[in-house]
């Protein structure tokens, strides 16, 4: 089986890769300065001319882009390709406001597909695999993105999209899916529904790989999924602004490779905007080096992570980004302390007495913020004794306090009573603004 999809690019020596990135950046900046009124204006405001971009590091001279730039220019005012050259649109769900539209030229689609072809091969998939794509098909990028990536490497696609979980499980068995692409919470849901149907994903299906993303998850959740379902679970990353899901972990499972010929990543201090050294957690800022229809330069995507450079054990030379540990805008500030929902997930994974699902309710009592975390008591842990239940609750409270450094109340709720998410999980109810 092919181990590396495009060895010339994926194993390119680091100095050569950097040279290529610089060349692509320089070309991009000149092109946009000359042909895009939006970017021209932005660079003028920042007081920077393409002639001043003389190294890869000079990228820090360029202005940032924000999600609001896409919203404010809805639907396509900052596109840099002629409308007749567009071959597809995707539209983001607009959970944080007005929807945003992304356009693709044929080259954009080709680059997106080859990014995913490299990614899928890097986690051990190829011809002979049946990849069940359980991301939504349609305006959302997940379904179609994975679909064409999987076809490209010669795998067989089972385009189930989201929902109708029982049917997904039947098809997974009947057509011997070896991989599934979906959100980690939807895979947990599939596992639960399968158990109710008397189907063990581990023993009764051929599933061996999960390509999981589109929402934050944790290393503990990976272990739980892998141990429970008997598969290898890989983190995949992307957003519609980058094209869609783009980058995936290789079999080393140590961060996703960002293909340097397509994207350049900076990790910055979210407060100061200053670059942070490798390994340190900060805000990811991404420049797409080859996009034609909707170029993104120094895009503040809002995700928090850290980056490792240097050659990976898999042989690939492209930088690795660690699993996303939070969103700049998901961050809750509870009594002055930064809290990410992913930390709560991490803490709960260590308490088998409570289930995998949770909700966070933030409220303000007087001047004080109060955070309540609802968890489900697992069937095995349920005891007739009130004192046992109280000690489970204290255990969860204690663990959360240690992880978050802020006092949390915990409420035990009945199993199955918390919402299950098939798309992006929305686990925070913040009542402080009401």
């Amino acid at each position, binding site marked *: 089986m092919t181990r590396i999809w495009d060895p010339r690019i994926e194993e390119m020596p680091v100095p050569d890769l950097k040279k290529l990135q610089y060349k692509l950046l320089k070309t991009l900046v000149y092109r946009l300065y000359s042909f895009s009124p939006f970017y021209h204006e932005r660079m003028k405001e920042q007081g920077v001319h393409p002639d001043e971009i003389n190294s890869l590091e000079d990228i820090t001279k360029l202005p940032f882009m924000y999600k609001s730039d896409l919203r404010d220019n809805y639907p396509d005012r900052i596109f840099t390709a002629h409308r007749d050259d567009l071959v597809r649109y995707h539209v983001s769900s607009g959970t944080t406001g007005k929807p945003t539209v992304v356009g693709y030229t044929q080259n954009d689609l080709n680059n997106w597909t080859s990014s995913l072809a490299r990614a899928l091969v890097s986690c051990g998939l190829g011809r002979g695999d049946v990849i069940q794509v359980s991301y939504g098909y349609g305006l959302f990028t997940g379904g179609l993105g994975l679909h064409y990536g999987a076809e490209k490497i010669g795998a067989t696609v089972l385009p189930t999209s989201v929902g109708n979980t029982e049917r997904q499980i039947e098809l997974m068995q009947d057509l011997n899916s070896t991989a599934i692409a979906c959100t980690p919470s939807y895979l947990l849901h599939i596992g639960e529904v399968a158990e109710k149907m008397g189907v063990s994903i581990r023993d009764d299906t051929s599933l061996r790989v999960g390509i999981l993303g589109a929402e934050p998850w944790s290393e503990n959740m990976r272990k739980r999924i892998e141990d429970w379902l008997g598969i290898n679970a890989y983190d995949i990353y992307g957003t519609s602004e980058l094209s869609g899901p783009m980058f995936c972990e290789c079999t080393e499972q140590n961060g996703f490779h960002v293909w340097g010929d397509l994207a350049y990543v900076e990790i910055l201090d979210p407060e100061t905007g200053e670059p942070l050294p490798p390994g340190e957690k900060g805000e990811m800022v991404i420049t797409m080096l080859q996009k034609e229809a909707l170029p993104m330069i120094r895009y503040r995507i809002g995700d928090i992570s850290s980056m490792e450079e240097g050659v990976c054990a898999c042989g690939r030379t492209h930088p690795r980004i660690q699993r996303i540990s939070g969103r700049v805008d998901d961050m809750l500030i509870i009594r002055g302390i930064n809290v990410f929902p992913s930390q709560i997930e991490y803490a709960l994974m260590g308490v088998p007495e409570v289930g995998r699902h949770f909700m966070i309710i933030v409220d303000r009592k007087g001047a004080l913020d109060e955070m309540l975390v609802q968890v489900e*008591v697992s069937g095995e842990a349920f005891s007739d004794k009130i004192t046992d239940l109280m000690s489970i609750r204290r255990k969860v409270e204690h663990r959360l306090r240690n992880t978050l450094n802020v006092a949390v109340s915990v409420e035990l709720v009945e199993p199955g009573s918390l919402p299950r998410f098939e798309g992006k999980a929305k686990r925070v109810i913040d009542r402080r603004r009401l």
Partner: protein
Amino acid sequence: MDTYVIRQVSVFSENRPGRLAAIARALQDEKINILAFSIAEADGFGVVRALVDRPDRAFETLGSLGFNVAFTDVIAVKMRDEPGGLYEIARILGDAQINIEYSYAYSGKEGAVLILRVDDVQSAIQALLERGAGIMESSAFQ
């Protein structure tokens, strides 16, 4: 001695309106009769404990509706329905160094009955039998 061990059905319930009704409705739909029951409450949640005529069916039904259900071994003792009746029973257990974790009682046509959850079920049955207390066989309920 197992003839005296009664399987009580315990159900985890959130402490909010309608939860007991949901449990009771499920039992009604299956024509399961509740012979004795109590609710223990804590902050935000509670445990509903019941003796029913068909515990396995109750367990299955509530479990399939998504409730957390468990069986707990309890014993039932007939008491004299007059002053001192409870004392007789409690004294026997106290003398035998058996701790009562929780208990509830009902008083019906055939007298008063005390349901007991104790830390050592076998020793409790032994002590009650030796002292001639009216310990009831589980077949009286189930």
